[in-house]
């Protein structure tokens, strides 16, 4: 009985420690609410998150980068090479301190995609980005816009590496049917915004550059 009370106390103290402190961002890990709410407006803490910073657009998984680029250009009026650098093989060492990296995740489950994706190479790239983000050198906005079709044995190993390092996750809800992103969000205290479709992300992108 004594041991049980001791264990319970340790657990409660552990929770207390985890919920203390934090950083200068007021993160809401579950802005979608208890139920999965979709198309929720981005919190004000992310207003101008990427403004006046060096912005990079890349993919880990070699899919959907053009979709996100389209949203970036239309939502925020950005121009490639002037306002952001697009490079589908970008490596972490090419990204200077203070940059914001838009990391597009998702792999074709049929192995389609530029040069047939090398999953290990993509994982290595993702790991490098995450390490740099965890060291506080860059920020990562992680995107998954392809839905259920962009999940599976090729994509998920990359997500397992990339998600914990994100500062913000913008995901089309169809890709979170198994709550992979929701669980990453909860377990790593990362804000996750779910959208009914990719075009619904436009206001979020606009706010990031407002």
């Amino acid at each position: 009985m004594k041991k049980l009370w001791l264990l319970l106390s340790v657990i409660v103290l552990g929770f207390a420690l985890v919920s203390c402190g934090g950083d200068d961002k007021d993160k809401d890990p579950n802005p979608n609410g208890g139920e999965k709410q979709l198309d929720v407006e981005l919190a004000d803490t992310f207003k101008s998150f990427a403004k006046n910073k060096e912005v990079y657009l890349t993919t880990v998984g070699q899919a959907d980068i053009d979709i996100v680029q389209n949203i970036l250009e239309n939502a925020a009026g950005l121009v490639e090479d002037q306002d952001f650098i697009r490079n589908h093989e970008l490596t972490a060492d090419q990204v200077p301190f203070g940059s914001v990296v838009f990391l597009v995740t998702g792999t074709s489950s049929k192995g389609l995609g530029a040069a047939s994706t090398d999953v290990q190479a993509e994982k290595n790239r993702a790991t490098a980005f995450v390490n740099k983000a965890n060291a506080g050198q860059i920020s990562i906005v992680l995107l998954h816009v392809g839905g259920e079709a962009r999940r599976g044995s090729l994509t998920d190993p990359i997500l397992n590496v990339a998600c914990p390092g994100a500062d913000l996750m913008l995901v089309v809800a169809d890709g979170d049917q198994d709550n992979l992103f929701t669980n990453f969000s909860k377990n790593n205290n990362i804000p996750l915004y779910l959208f009914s479709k990719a075009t619904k992300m436009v206001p979020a992108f606009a706010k990031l550059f407002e």
Partner: protein
Amino acid sequence: MKIMQLSKKQKGILYSSCFIILALVITFWSGKNFYDFAHYETEFAIRENVVTRVEKFSKYSPRLKGTVGDSNIYVIEGAEPGPSILIIGGTHPNEPAGQVAATVLLENLTVERGTVYIITEANRSAYTHSHPQEASIQYFGIETPYGVRTFKFGSRATNTNQQWPNPDVYVHRNSGQKLSSADTRNLNRAYPGSENGTYTERVAYAITECIRQNNITITIDLHEASPEYQTINTIVSHNRKEALKIAAAATLMMESNDVSIRYEESPLNLHGLTHRELGDYTDTLAFLLETSNASQGKIRGAFTEELVLTGKDKFYQKAMEKGIGKILYAAPVSLDERVARHVYGVYEIIQAFNKYYGTEGLGELKVNGFPSYQDIMTNGVGNYLKEIIK
């Protein structure tokens, strides 16, 4: 002479003769059926005041002249010159939405500026037979205000009557890629083709040369695949930056209008396909559209006209309920929906091209008369097939 009075030898001759006569009757009956199917000509409504001219494949690949594979290319020129688009239907005659969508476009579009090229039967040889052991239907009919329009349901591959013998391993001429023998007769593995190559390569060569000689700006190849195939409801785009930009924009627009679709880049190491080779060997912006066709799937039951038209199949229903096979998009998917997707996909690709590249080079491609996705879904594709006036 009664049979019982015949000797054993005479009875043997009688029975043998009966069997041979029966064999000849069956041969004649089935042979006539196959022959009629092979020679049946699908009709298309050619609007004489709209279609500028009809070219033949043999204009670009002379050895096809006088053969079954010498297909038509319907050309609709606008009043003003401008960019051009080629829409390819009927590459795989077991993928009906490709041909029917091309037919809808042929029979409805008008061109203000630029040129539209439409092929409704890209591989006519493949329309002369069906795939062995599939027990597929031969024809399917679409109800229109003018009666039933009959289309053929053919094979994925060129008829061996036009191309035989075939090697056990198909080596793609330009890349050296090795594929199964079955792909030797697959038009969508034969690009860019060869003037003096196999029959299928000559057909591919005709299409490639048409694009090259006419400097066609955009090429869209219309296809279908089984519901369990992972690349359905997809725009596959050549890797050229402009093509990817257009594909992404078209995808987003379609998605924003609740037509679920995604895009894929053409894999660099899979050769012979339109989205790979036409983009590599010509200046065209190459795209391929895929929709979901239950009649191509392996889970399906009986192969009926209803299956082709409605996509309804009890075995696919059971598979989805039990979560067997990763079927991404809920069946059944009717022919109306598949054709609507293709037609809408072509429309959005043109809109995206005009948005990003309409102010440079040849300017905008102005094409009108697209039935909307919603209209086709509501009214049925038959409503957009015109009367054939003989």
